[in-house]
């Protein structure tokens, strides 16, 4: 997936920067959007994304997952950037889109409603310096950057909100070494589906 820079008009966009703002839930740093992959609870989309950098290093993955704060998870990840998978730049946008799909599937009501509320407006993440994932102010009423996260969120909105496709379960990415704690990442599902279809609490005993 290749993404090039674009310019956005400030007046036209739905923007988010702080997780406490109206659209803060769109941020990977937003609390309250926990995930579970391969039976492991992961506190945020940011943590899951960072974990995917280090498929061959379960101890780094554990250190990232054990952080409650997504910002701390990202900082831990920075410590180990030398251990990042070699093809990271080629796969990182695909991985991020997969992470966003997992976030939607496992936080369906909340995340669906938030994405729906953005209407058809361009979604952008505001930043002071990150022109890759976000946009930065450039001149009067103008924002510029690749806005990769915003564009992936728009793709998600188009695929699952506008076109109303089902996202009960999300298949793993078809890339080599898509591992969590030493095992291939499996299909993950909406917890309602997981619990109700699989009767996980099916027993009651003395």
């Amino acid at each position, binding site marked *: 997936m290749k993404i090039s820079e674009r310019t956005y008009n400030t007046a036209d966009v739905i923007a988010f920067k702080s997780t406490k703002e109206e659209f803060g839930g769109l941020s990977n740093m937003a609390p309250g959007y926990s995930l579970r992959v*391969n039976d492991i609870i992961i506190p945020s989309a940011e943590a899951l994304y960072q974990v995917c950098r280090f498929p061959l290093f*379960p101890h780094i993955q554990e250190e990232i997952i054990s952080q409650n704060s997504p910002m701390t998870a990202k900082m831990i990840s920075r410590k180990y950037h030398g251990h990042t998978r070699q093809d990271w730049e080629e796969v990182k946008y695909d991985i991020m889109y997969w992470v966003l799909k997992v976030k939607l599937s496992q936080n369906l009501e909340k995340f669906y409603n938030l994405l729906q509320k953005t209407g058809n407006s361009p979604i952008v993440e505001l930043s002071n310096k990150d022109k890759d994932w976000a946009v930065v102010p450039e001149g009067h009423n103008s924002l510029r950057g690749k806005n990769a996260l915003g564009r992936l969120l728009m793709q998600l909105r188009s695929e699952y909100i506008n076109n109303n496709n089902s996202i009960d379960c999300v298949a793993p990415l078809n890339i080599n070494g898509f591992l969590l704690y*030493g095992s291939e990442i499996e299909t993950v599902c909406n*917890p309602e589906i997981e619990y109700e279809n*699989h009767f996980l609490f099916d027993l009651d005993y003395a």
Partner: protein
Amino acid sequence: MKEIAGKIFEILQDYHCDSPETDHRMSIEHIIEWANQFDDDAEFVLTELLYFLPQIYISKNRAIELLEKRLVDFQAFYKYSSMQEFINNTNFIDTQKPEKSQKEVLSILRNILDEKYGINYDLLIDQPKKHYIYFDDVLATGGTVYKDLSNWLSESTHLKDVLSKEKTIALSLFCYHKLGFDNIEWRLMKAFDDRIKNFLLVGFDYKIENQLKPKWIAEKQALNCIYPLEKQPKEVLEYLASLEGENTGVAAFRPENLPLKEIFFSSPESRIRFENIVLEKGLELIQKIKKADPDPRKRPLGDTVRSHRTLGTGTLFFTWRNISNTCPVVFWWDVPGHDWIPLFCLRNRGTN
């Protein structure tokens, strides 16, 4: 064999000792009678059972010791200088039916408070409370605990109060299955609030490590349960293939290299032999069910959720008051006409 059975009896002698509902009594003869059903493997089964039994049996006296300690731990955790002050502010959640385990645990707690501290818990029930504790004995899949905690969090302003630290919620168990507890935690997070994970205090005495994925987690598990290898007779494999459960997320067999270090059975070879004996006999018993619509949760290695395509939960943990139906059926199967004497009689649970 009598000597081994005698040592087992010393450990199990209070099983159902206080139950007025059954005339069953544990005895050396009863233990031998049960073991002899394994024919040539009888002595081996008893020897191996004796090896791990001290870790996994909670006698009533041991339960009292553990609950005494749990009360002291909670008092210290919540920073009260006296037990009286702690109990003044504490409510033991009481939701299970009379015949269930929670009532019995709460009865022991009342006695401890009365005899050791001179506190009458029931006289303090109407006082305003800050701490809520859910006591139970064993958590397997976690269905009961999830339902009760979920109901409690839905009542009044409990959720808001817990998140704002005006109230606390804790869980106390003698034993829990890791996979079952993880399911509860995740479900509570999704049903209520992610932060609940940080506010649910859990006191426990024994953990059954039965999580076989992901690999890195599995390699740290003791597998202190029955989890057989795939190399099985065709009857076992055919039975497994015949199950209707579609969820293969939980593996039916453990990998050959796990556990990495054997700390539960007397040796890796004994584990394999014991697991296979229990599985083979358990399958014989399950296949004696002639109902047209047998309970899909009943499996040779103990009940499990119907969707799992496995041979059963394989729990190895017993308390003086009952045996979990998630334990291998050879320990508790008691069905007229099936020609099997269980080691542990059941209480308050139907049979097939």
